[in-house]
């Protein structure tokens, strides 16, 4: 594979393992940050994971792909389900290769006296603090400053599964077409975890089911098809 002297040719393109995206011998004293899916091979940066190559200024490169399983990364906001409680941690499932630990004190104003009681099966919106391969990821219900923010328990509603790609689309700005269109007619609240889970709540069960299924279905439709599908759906509600 020839090395690409100008990396911009491959940005936002589909890349497969083995593609070389940067030739370091040409670039002079620049720091570049590599995200997931990229590896340094001596003088070249090559791709490890199939997906789309992304770049943000000034110097961040990474490969984005959509999977059913999630690989934890520090700083992600995810939806976790409590599967066990220990004296020191809550054990949560975040759809990753290993179960994650949420320390009992990682809540705003958390002390030994007011440890929350979560039963098995509780749904929590948490932040991944650290995730190293081989270790269980660490979670927290506070943001970096120690404030609770929106983290914590999610009551009522229903949790739907999706792929990581759809979750990223739902979190992107401008808002996803489905969310915009549904938000105009219906009122609901939604929490999206980058680990491929999203939670919807509304006053009526039928709204929750409608929103959840519409979002899940929109993943396999193109933009035009989505518009048509949403038009039909919203008409049928009236």
């Amino acid at each position: 594979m020839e090395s690409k002297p100008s990396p911009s040719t491959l940005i936002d393109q589909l890349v497969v393992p083995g593609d070389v995206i940067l030739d370091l011998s040409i670039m002079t004293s620049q720091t570049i940050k590599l995200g997931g899916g990229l590896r340094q091979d001596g003088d070249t940066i090559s791709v490890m994971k199939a997906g789309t190559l992304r770049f943000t200024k000034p110097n961040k490169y990474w490969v984005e792909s959509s999977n059913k399983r999630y690989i934890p990364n520090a700083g992600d906001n995810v939806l976790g389900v409590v599967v066990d409680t220990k004296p020191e941690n809550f054990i949560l499932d975040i759809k990753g290769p290993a179960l994650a630990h949420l320390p009992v004190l990682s809540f705003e104003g958390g002390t030994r006296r007011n440890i929350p009681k979560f039963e098995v099966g509780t749904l929590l919106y948490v932040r991944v603090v650290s995730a190293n391969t081989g270790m269980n990821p660490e979670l927290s219900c506070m943001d970096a400053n120690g404030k609770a923010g929106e983290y914590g328990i999610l009551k009522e509603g229903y949790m739907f599964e999706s792929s990581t790609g759809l979750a990223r689309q739902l979190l992107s700005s401008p808002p996803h077409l489905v969310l915009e269109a549904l938000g105009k007619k219906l009122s609901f609240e939604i929490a999206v975890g980058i680990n491929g889970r999203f939670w919807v709540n509304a006053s009526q069960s039928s709204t929750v089911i409608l929103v959840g299924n519409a979002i899940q279905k929109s993943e396999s439709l193109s933009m035009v098809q989505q518009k048509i599908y949403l038009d039909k759906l919203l008409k049928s509600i009236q």
Partner: protein
Amino acid sequence: MEQRVANSLVMTVNEKRFIESALLSDIRVDGRRPFDYRTLTIRFGSEDGSSEVQLGQTQVVGFVTGQLVQPYRDRPNEGTFAIYTEFSPMADPSFEPGRPGDSAIELGRIVDRGLRESRAVDTESLCVIAGKLVWAIRIDLHIIDNGGNLVDAANIAALAALSTFTRPECTFGGEDGQELIVNPPDEREPLPLIIHHLPVAVTFGFIGDDNIVVIDPTHYEEAVMGGSMTATLNTNGDVCAIQKAGGAGVLQSSIMQCLRIASVKAGDITSKIKNAVESYNTQKAKRKVKRHNPAPAVSSVAKNHMERLTLGSDESAVGQSNNMDIDGQSNEQDKTNKSKNTAKDLTGGPASWDPYSSAVDGDELRASLASRVATPLEKDKESTQVKPDETKSTQQSTDANSIAEIHETVEVGSQKKQAKTLKDAVKPKHKRKNKSTSKPSAS
């Protein structure tokens, strides 16, 4: 501990409460009503007796195979059948390879009971030599994807596979007429199984404290339901089997209501299975006809393709004609009536050939050919490609090939499409005759 937890389905308390509260307003999580089935798709494999059923996200593949064995001593003139289930680990993280778990065995038992107790498959017709040799039918069900309600999907897969399964015909031959010959499929048409009725399994789930009934539960609903019941019935109104193993207690009136609903659903599913099997059989019959009677009325694209092959294929035409002769002889009985009649009409030679003989209906021929035009070229079979090549090449070759001459004279007075069909049917005989009498300059 972590591995075990990761393997089982992780359910939140929100989901359980939501499913129950949504059911109070008669709506389920995937938008269905309590008594709606998911979309059912039945497909068949390339071999007889293999089926693939998709019920929503659940996928099951069924295979039926037969073997000649000794019968059981207490039933010397009945064949046997057995069901084997395999829960593939790719279907669900909780399925482990190796020994079947409880749910796998239960599924096998339900399907088996539905077929055996109700005598849906006629076992006496499977007897070949009483007391010595009978057919043992083996049904293998592979679960490919677990989206809930494996029992119903597996049952439909078994029924579909049994409906399309064919076994070779056994005849007695040899010197003293005592030797058993198992005829291969190309010599004698294999026989289907005799199935008296189709016992269809319908599964109900009871969710919540009020035991609200839902039909065809998804695997999320299965995780929250308090009990389940499977009723196997047929369209004649017979209840073949009922399975309710443990779980919440249910009122008698609820059970009766379930059975009534199940009979309606069984009717739907039976008609779906029958339609799918019928279209599979007509496809099979069409394929068989095409194989021995290729439709040369091909589209213009194909014509160009054929023209390009003209140059090289004349030499090969001779060699292939030999094959066709043999094929023509052995497949006489398989040809449809029209080709048989035309073959007889043509014995006198080209001059006496009458394309408008009473045995041939031109319009019908053209219509049937038109419907088969698109498909012949999609087949990969060497033989079908070879024959059209050959016919086209000889038609379009302008050299002094005697065969070509015959075709040209024939073409003059008849419909082009019709001529090609009958020519093909006849060609082997013509070639044979020409070869034995004179040496045509076929090259």
